[in-house]
């Protein structure tokens, strides 16, 4: 920017969003940390105060009871979350890469419309689209009926309320988030590099393995993080499509909060999740900074 | 009092010195050129005048006022950008009116001024068009009209003819001169094309590595360059390098040192050179009186009205002579010739 210099103008521009995000994003995380150290109570709000004014001044009444409880009962949920998220990420990559590749190599005039149609489902309600999968995957749903009508099965397959439907739902929901950064990377690939490789005698498979793949790694990394991080804490999909065996962290948090009204416990669940996500988040931050 | 007064201005970018203690002044109604190869600092100097960069040292005065610390929007200077920088979301009239709206001119006067500017650049029918609908030459006219709309005392032009093809360049050059005369604004333009500078400017500052190598009229710069650099950069030239010996130039090209009184003050052995423009180099079959160098015709380049004849000396040095094609017809490849010139036509260079 030409007339730079650090003046009041620059502060005017930065201050509002900075303060807003600080108050409504960072600060709340601090509050969560604080409340995770309190206990559930029958008060409004339903937790014991962290700080009390006693005769000895300000005292803190912190307890790690919530975390101990968490370690005893919710570890499996964290394991499920990590596992399902990882599996969904891998599948999104497997399914999304060919699609992104096909769009990137499509005739120029087709690329933007194709991308538009990849993004369009994202603009319509996820909730409703996941609900649609219920009607497809149910025992009395379309898929089973079709298979029965074709004579391929005698009894309906258990396609819903299990790991299969959860992973399917996750892949379905997050696929656009994988395709877009992959496309970004692949579309920047210089066609002449591939031609040069071919000219030097490399077969298509080798060209892909040694040139296309390495050069598209930034897109792969970005897409993987964009899917993995939110998928771990996903609530709607395991709730609607999952069953008792697919308990994920998002649902545990929800249940603690809404069903058990144990806010401190929910806060503890959230804190552990935040800690788990710190490493991927910092990675994403580094990638984002490098990309610009 | 000059219109633009630049006093020992310097600008560094990190370790690189772009402008090094430059001083020059431009008067009212002048067409002034900053000429030099890329990296010589001419564009940086232009941007310093416009206010997009602050000098690290020195002062800049416009019309007697010190504008060194003033931001671009407070200087009575406007610029025509090399890429035109037309606002894509405004039409032609909107672009031209932008600066007028900024200074709060009321609508009717604004419209009148816009119409006046459009007429000046002969784009009256294009008022409602958008920039993306215009050709390169048309965009340039709009950019010019926009820059002149506020009637600045000083107009800066960044490589105005660079993006145009040859024929358009000719026409545009004449138009620019005509407009400048009509409007009376001083023009300072930056170019790397010495033909452009010689053809348009009343005064030229030739720049090299952040400094002004020579400042003068087109004729002065061309006929009396003050250094090897200027002689070589502006126009074609035959340069004979050698050393000063008394008041003569001793050079491998000459059998005997050539007497040059201008070299009298130079210590013995200092590097010096002699410059002879191709049109001043005379080729003849017979050995001329005075300076004579033996050579063989290497090629004859027909260029329409004139021809360029290259002749090689026995030591392999290539001489370049320019003459009317009718005269060039007398020379064929391989023919032996003598090269000579009128001593008054050669320029002694001490650096």
């Amino acid at each position: 920017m030409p007339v730079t210099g650090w003046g009041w103008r620059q502060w005017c521009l930065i201050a509002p969003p900075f303060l807003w995000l600080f108050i409504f994003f960072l600060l709340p995380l601090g509050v969560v940390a604080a409340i995770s150290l309190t206990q559930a109570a029958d008060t409004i709000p339903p937790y014991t105060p962290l700080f009390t004014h006693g005769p000895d001044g300000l005292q803190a009444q912190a307890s790690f009871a919530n975390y101990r409880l968490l370690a005893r009962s919710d570890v499996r949920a964290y394991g499920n979350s990590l596992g399902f998220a990882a599996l969904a990420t891998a599948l999104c990559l497997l399914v999304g890469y060919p699609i992104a590749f096909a769009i990137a190599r499509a005739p120029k005039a087709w690329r933007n419309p194709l991308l538009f149609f990849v993004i369009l489902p994202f603009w319509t309600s996820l909730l409703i689209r996941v609900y649609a999968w219920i009607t497809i995957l149910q025992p009395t749903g379309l898929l089973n009926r079709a298979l029965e009508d074709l004579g391929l099965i005698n009894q309906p397959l258990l396609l819903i309320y299990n790991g299969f439907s959860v992973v399917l739902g996750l892949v379905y929901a997050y696929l656009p988030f994988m395709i877009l950064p992959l496309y970004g990377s692949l579309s920047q690939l210089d066609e002449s590099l591939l031609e040069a490789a071919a000219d030097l005698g490399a077969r298509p498979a080798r060209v892909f393995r040694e040139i296309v793949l390495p050069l598209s790694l930034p897109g792969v990394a970005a897409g993987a993080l964009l899917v993995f991080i939110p998928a771990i804490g996903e609530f709607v999909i395991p709730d609607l499509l999952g069953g008792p065996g697919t308990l994920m962290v998002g649902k545990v948090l929800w249940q603690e909060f809404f069903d058990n009204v144990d806010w401190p416990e929910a806060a503890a669940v959230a804190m552990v999740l935040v800690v788990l996500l710190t490493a991927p988040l910092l990675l994403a931050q580094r990638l984002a900074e490098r990309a610009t | 009092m000059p219109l633009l007064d630049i006093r020992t201005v310097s600008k560094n970018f990190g370790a690189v010195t772009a402008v090094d203690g430059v001083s020059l002044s431009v008067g009212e109604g002048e067409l002034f050129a900053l000429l030099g190869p890329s990296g010589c600092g001419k564009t940086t100097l232009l941007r310093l005048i416009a206010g997009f960069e602050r000098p690290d040292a020195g002062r800049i005065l416009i019309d007697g006022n010190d504008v060194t610390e003033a931001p671009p929007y407070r200087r009575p200077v406007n610029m025509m950008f090399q890429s035109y920088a037309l606002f894509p979301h405004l039409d032609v009239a909107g672009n031209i009116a932008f600066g007028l709206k900024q200074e709060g001119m009321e609508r009717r006067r604004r419209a009148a001024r816009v119409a006046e500017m459009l007429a000046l650049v002969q784009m009256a029918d294009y008022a409602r068009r958008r920039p993306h609908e215009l050709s390169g030459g048309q965009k340039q006219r709009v950019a010019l009209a926009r820059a002149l709309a506020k009637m600045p005392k000083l107009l800066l032009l960044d490589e105005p003819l660079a993006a145009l093809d040859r024929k358009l360049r000719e026409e545009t050059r004449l138009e620019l001169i005509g407009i400048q005369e009509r409007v009376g604004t001083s023009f300072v333009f930056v170019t790397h094309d010495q033909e452009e500078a010689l053809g348009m400017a009343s005064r030229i500052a030739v720049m090299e590595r952040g400094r002004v190598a020579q400042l003068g009229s087109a004729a002065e710069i061309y006929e009396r360059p003050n250094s090897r650099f200027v002689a070589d950069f502006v126009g074609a030239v035959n340069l004979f390098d050698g050393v000063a010996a008394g008041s003569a130039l001793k050079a491998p090209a000459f059998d005997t040192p050539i007497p040059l009184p201008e070299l009298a003050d130079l210590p013995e052995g200092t590097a010096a050179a002699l410059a002879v423009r191709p049109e001043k180099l005379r080729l003849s079959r017979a050995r001329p009186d005075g300076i004579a160098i033996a050579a063989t015709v290497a090629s004859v380049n027909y260029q329409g009205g004139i021809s360029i004849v290259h002749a090689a000396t026995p030591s392999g040095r290539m001489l370049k002579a320019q003459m009317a094609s009718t005269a060039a017809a007398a020379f064929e490849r391989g023919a032996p010739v003598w090269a000579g010139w009128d001593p008054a036509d050669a320029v002694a260079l001490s650096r």
Partner: protein
Amino acid sequence: MSRRITLFRAAVLALGFGFLYLPIALLIAYSFNASRLVAVWGGWSLHWYGALIDDDKFRDAAWNSLRIGMMAASLALMLGTGAGFAIARFTRFPGRLVFSFMLMAPLVVPEVILGLSLLLLFVASQAWFGWPASRGLLTVTIAHATFGSCFVAVLVRAQLAGFDHTLEEAALDLGARPFSVLWRVILPGISPALVSGWLLAFTLSLDDLVVASFVSGPSATTLPMAVYSSVRIGVTPEINALATVFLAVVIVIVTLAFSLIARQERRRLARR
């Protein structure tokens, strides 16, 4: 590339888009199904659309969601544009790392965390300062504006990267002060990002279930909340009709916006 590979690519695209659009196609088809059951096709009918219009709870929820969406998107646009501009142009300032983290994290952090943390903040703030007095439209709007602004910032930042900065110099040269330059040259120049940013924030707000569930209050049910409670009870065909209407509206708006943007991009590129 040989024919065979192109055929493979076409198949990949067909399968991929089939997968993405199958549920959507089904929703639309079954919204016209006269029969309640998915198993039975009862013929074409607009019955469910009628039921949808008559349904108070969906109508009220939709109205809430629309209001929240518009306010949150507008707020997100204002905050996000400033943020995107700042992060793109100001390369060094104290707190830049924190700022950049705060702009990126809400995009990926799970919604349950966003929702819970904001609710706890509102509750604590109510206990200490008395604000907010009650949770409802305002708190949901604040929450949606928070993550919406991060999305807007991404789009603005990307568009600024390709912005011709000589236009700014030209404006300054013609007498515009820096704020004028922003308002009269830069913002019009990045309008595709502004339009798509607003739309994106609006859509995200309209679609959000989790965060709204945490920070909302009684009598401020949003459309996703109404749909969710409906779906938990059992599959009701009204939802198909709702989905189709929703889809139609979104497609119209998004198509309009994208064609507008594409037209402006063509102009911008032709300029060079």
